[in-house]
């Protein structure tokens, strides 16, 4: 009997991570104690709730809808304490030794840049730009689906920070590669993909949407195939590294993302399904699976699924 020999550490956007599992933005990230708790539970790093210029309460409840384990719909509406108050939360998290990535959202390049500059002061290790919230008007994917806006916002933030900048992209687009390339041109150090898919649930007896906001964002296993497709395509379309997000519940889900080209992954909905101890389980299971598969380093997995594509004898578009 001996422990796993696999080396789970990975590098992405200049960050050295002890393992590839990051706490996804919007999960547990409103308070410093929670960020710290997620790191202590085993996450390789933690991403804050997306922070805006002003405090926001978000949408009224109901804000969530859970399908059996395969899907989750939410319209929180970007609640956050605002940039003035949030640095104390980061201080609490960093006090606990957590590697913290700061997420920001805004209406335009100037607002993003201002927020990025402010967070840079707090000692976060990197910035993630939420260019992709699917249910907030004039924010999120409404700015994030236009390549030139993505490029401008990224560039504006990069100019105002010394930190690596990660552009988090929306799957609600016909061409995520164009968005990724725009972020790369703007100077992003990495792409993360994906945020939630725009979705809706209606209660048949009440004849009304079940979320107060109506539209929400779909996460969980249902979106894993979509996230994988995005990571796979983005990996081919840019030189900067990719972080995979969407529907990761198990080590094998994470392996799929690594093979598709991700250098790290973010985990969100799994926390609602399996609790924060999911990070410990993921780390342990990834080690076990890598041992089983005879893979020594995370590095050796990244993008490996592309080696076999297109498979021999399988023309891409026959006839």
């Amino acid at each position, binding site marked *: 009997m001996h422990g796993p020999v696999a080396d789970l550490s990975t590098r992405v956007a200049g960050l050295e991570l002890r393992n590839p599992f990051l706490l996804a933005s919007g999960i547990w990230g*409103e308070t410093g104690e929670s960020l710290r708790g997620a790191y202590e539970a085993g996450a390789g790093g933690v991403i804050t709730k997306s922070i805006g210029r002003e405090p926001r*309460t978000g949408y009224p409840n109901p804000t969530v809808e859970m399908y059996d384990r395969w899907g989750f719909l939410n319209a929180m509406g970007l*609640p956050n304490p605002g940039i003035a108050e949030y640095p104390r939360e980061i201080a609490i998290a960093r006090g606990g030794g957590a590697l913290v990535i700061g997420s920001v959202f805004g209406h335009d390049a100037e607002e993003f840049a201002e927020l990025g500059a402010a967070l840079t002061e707090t000692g976060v290790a990197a910035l993630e730009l939420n260019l992709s919230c699917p249910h907030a008007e004039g924010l999120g994917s409404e700015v994030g689906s236009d390549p030139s806006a993505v490029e401008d916002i990224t560039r504006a933030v990069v100019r105002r920070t010394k930190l690596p900048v990660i552009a988090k992209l929306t799957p609600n687009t016909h061409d995520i590669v164009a968005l990724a390339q725009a972020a790369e041109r703007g100077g992003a150090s990495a792409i993360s993909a994906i945020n939630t898919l725009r979705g809706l649930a209606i209660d048949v007896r009440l004849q009304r949407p079940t979320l107060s906001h109506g539209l929400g964002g779909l996460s969980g296993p249902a979106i894993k195939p979509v996230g994988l497709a995005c990571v796979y395509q983005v990996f081919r379309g840019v030189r900067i590294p990719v972080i995979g997000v969407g529907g990761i519940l198990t080590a094998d889900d994470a392996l799929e993302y690594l093979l598709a080209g991700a250098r790290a992954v973010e985990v969100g909905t799994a926390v609602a399904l399996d609790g924060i101890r999911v990070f410990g389980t993921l780390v342990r299971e990834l080690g076990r699976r890598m041992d089983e598969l005879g893979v020594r380093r995370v590095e050796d997995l990244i993008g490996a699924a592309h080696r076999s594509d297109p498979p021999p004898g399988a023309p891409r578009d026959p006839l």
Partner: protein
Amino acid sequence: MRRIVPVSGRTVETPTTVTLRFEDARPAAPGQFVMLWIPGDDEIPMSLSYVGSSKGVTVKVMGPTSRHIQEIAPGTLLGVRGPYGNAFELTPHRVLVVAGGSGAAVLAPAAEALRARGGEVEVALGATRASELLFEGRFAAMGATVHPATDDGSRGARGFVTELVGPLLARGRFDAIWTCGPEVMMQKVIAAAQGTGVPVVCSVERWMKCGLGLCDACALGPYHVCVDGPVFPAERLGAVPEFGRTKHDAAGRRVPG
């Protein structure tokens, strides 16, 4: 996960508190809560005041939604998800229940469950005035001794219910104190029990959105009230500086509370 249920019964408990009943087969334990949706209005956390298959919530007017709930007629459809959170452990034999405000809503079914197991219950029941004493009759009917206290002295002792705790602990022997009410009230209960060796268990309320341990709205130091609570032993709360001092508001700001 959400069930749509018609209100099967409505009882006015006090001038500012009503109980709504509904059928829901999901098993629940005293201490657990549901997220209650009033379609067209908010969805808010509510402890279960009845935990059998005919469930109930007992709602005190606090703001617009709880006021709206007061007017809900039987037959109205509500959304319910849960039950969520943990429950009171029914291991102690003699329990002192200390209830303020709507706190009796969650403590009454717990006391009932304890009585059903042969436990003994005394209740320190506080309210602003006599008419606001919640579940006095229900506690009496389960065979608990009730010690009322009202701010205006219209029934029982005049003053805060917490002032009864010291004398009751001095007089009787208890294995535990269960309390629910404003955090400052619960802190006073904890203080009164200090040094007596009687452990205090608190049911805590925090802002809630998801109820699933995901959104961080209910963060209380390192805990999430929706999954780690709402029932906490006082020792755990003692290590949380913000208990009784600050809360997070709907935006996650730290506000006095």
